[in-house]
């Protein structure tokens, strides 16, 4: 197990290196002088020179990279050019709503996809199966922000059941907090569920065809018992991996859904930073999102290795 962990950790180094290069280069992809672009047309020559100095834009590119990565490793993502505070603090302030939305959506997705996927696998070819695949197709093709807009239009505007947009912190009362989160979490959750339904179904189908399931059946266990207690435990592993692997789309989905519902999270921060050309915040947001994505994947991989010895043995080759 230790060598498996070490191998996975070593494998992260090139990934993180490439990620850091890409994020670092964002500021240098601007046409012309980054300092001038950030300051806008009205800036004086001194201001531009001063900013160039502060961002050490006059150094050779690789020196700049070393300086930048040195600060990043110490947890310093620079200053927000527009807000005047540290990027880490700016993002930290906005993290709450985004995490709430993402976790809520994941719960919705699991609540939809696991029962539906299991049912579809138990009765393949049935009307229920077709329905599950239909839900999956729609969720797969519709981006969450589109579903969100449609829900806001129908449930929020036409029916007036739920607020169209906005966010209330938990301190405003639990019901208010939840009321404003229902539409966003559903629109993001259904889209996330699309893939999970397919994976759950495929994985359950495979497991239900195995010998030990036939044995369980021969013992006279009820189909329900077999599906939920015996087969599902084995079938859940791929589902777990996909939850980790789709974390990226969950987060980006959350960022866009926030914009639909005016939730003051990291997504809105990113959007307004793009409009303001506040590159330090853009870099920081992308770096932290990617980092959390990589870490989540690492954790699911490790859990997977822990749960299924074949994975870690297979990875370390002949032993």
């Amino acid at each position, binding site marked *: 197990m230790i060598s498996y962990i070490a191998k996975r950790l070593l494998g992260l180094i*090139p*990934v*993180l290196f*490439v*990620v850091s*290069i*890409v*994020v670092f280069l964002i*500021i240098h*992809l*601007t*046409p012309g002088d980054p300092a001038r672009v950030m300051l806008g047309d009205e800036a004086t020559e001194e201001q531009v020179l001063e900013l160039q100095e502060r961002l050490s834009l006059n150094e050779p590119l690789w020196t700049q990279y070393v300086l930048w990565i040195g600060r990043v490793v110490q947890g310093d993502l620079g200053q927000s050019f527009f807000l005047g505070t540290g990027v880490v603090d700016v993002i930290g302030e906005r993290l709450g709503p985004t995490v709430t939305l993402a976790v809520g959506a994941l719960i919705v997705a699991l609540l939809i996809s696991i029962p539906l996927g299991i049912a579809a696998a138990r009765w393949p070819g049935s009307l229920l199966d077709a329905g599950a695949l239909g839900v999956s*197709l729609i969720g*797969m*093709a*519709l*981006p969450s*922000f*589109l579903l969100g*807009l449609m829900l*806001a*239009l129908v449930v*929020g*505007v036409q029916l007036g059941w739920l607020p*169209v947009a906005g966010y209330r912190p938990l301190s405003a009362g639990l019901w208010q907090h939840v009321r404003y989160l229902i539409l966003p979490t559903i629109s993001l959750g259904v889209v996330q569920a699309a*893939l999970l339904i*397919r*994976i759950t*179904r*495929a*994985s359950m189908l*495979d497991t239900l065809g195995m010998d030990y399931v036939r044995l369980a059946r021969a013992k006279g266990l009820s189909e329900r018992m077999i599906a939920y207690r015996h087969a599902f435990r084995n079938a859940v*592993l*791929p589902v777990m*991996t*996909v939850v980790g*692997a*789709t974390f*990226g*789309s969950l*987060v*980006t989905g959350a*960022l*866009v859904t926030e*914009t639909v519902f005016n939730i003051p999270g990291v997504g809105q921060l*990113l*959007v307004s930073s*793009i*409009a303001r*050309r506040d*590159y330090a915040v*853009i870099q920081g947001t*992308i770096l932290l*999102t*990617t980092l959390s*994505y990589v870490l989540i994947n690492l954790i699911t991989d490790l859990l997977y290795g822990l749960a*299924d010895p*074949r*994975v870690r043995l*297979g990875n370390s080759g002949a032993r």
Partner: protein
Amino acid sequence: MTAITSSFFQVRATASKLTKYPALLAGLIILIAAALICFVVPLFITESSTAMDMRNRFAPPLSGGSLLGTDEYGRSVLARVLEGGRTSLLVGMAVATLATISGIVIGLLSAYYPLLDQILMRIADGLLAIPRMLLAAAWSAARGPLAVTLVTALTIASTRVMARLVRSRARAVKEEAFIDARRVQRASDFRILFRHIAPNCVSVVAVHACFIFADAIITEAALSFLGAGVPPPAPSWGNMLYDGKAAIFNGWWIAGFPALIVAITTIALTMVGDGLRDMFDPKGQRPRGNLWGLLLGRRGTKW
């Protein structure tokens, strides 16, 4: 002559095959219809997509002289949906084509040259770790919101998965006997790669190109929606959704129609992609689901 007749029979065989895959056929018909409507209908209507008419703001559908109503500046929603459709379809097509070509080249080369493979795949791993939307958003934030920037960003973001898929297919094909035979005949590497291995990757490529197409349309819409895509006043489905959201209490049709058409187009593309996969592999031994399914393998035990 024989070549012509054989290709004629191939086309006929493909056409008759299509009827066995209703989802594929339906998806294709919807797509062709959408493309025809977006590119041909504007030639026959007089409504402009950018002309404002302040006396005629928020006119509901079928009133105020516009079939689909007008937006907050009195612009025709119909004309804008069609114009935006041209942008979206062109962006999607451009991204799908460019990402396919670069994905094939990178995938084939890395399947064939181990050293290059190590370098390219490490880069691909790194790029895969950054969520695609963020990569595209960052790129267009840096380069300024333009259609060209958007296409470049989406191409970069989509190439990596295509390259991975081609690579794994090509690695399997490389081990087959007929490739050894070509090598014995002293065919050049280039010839082996592009004449003999590449045609065997077509099924993987065609299926995934559809998903890239659909994804490009969605991502374009999302980015324009966030203000990092096609800049106004030129319409795109994404920035129409944005305008529609701002005016959500004034009229459902402003966001409703673009939302509907994005949904129809992407569902059609997904149907085509799924249908093509079933057609190439009727046994269904292949993973279900989209690219994650392909990456995960059949039982999802490795990726």
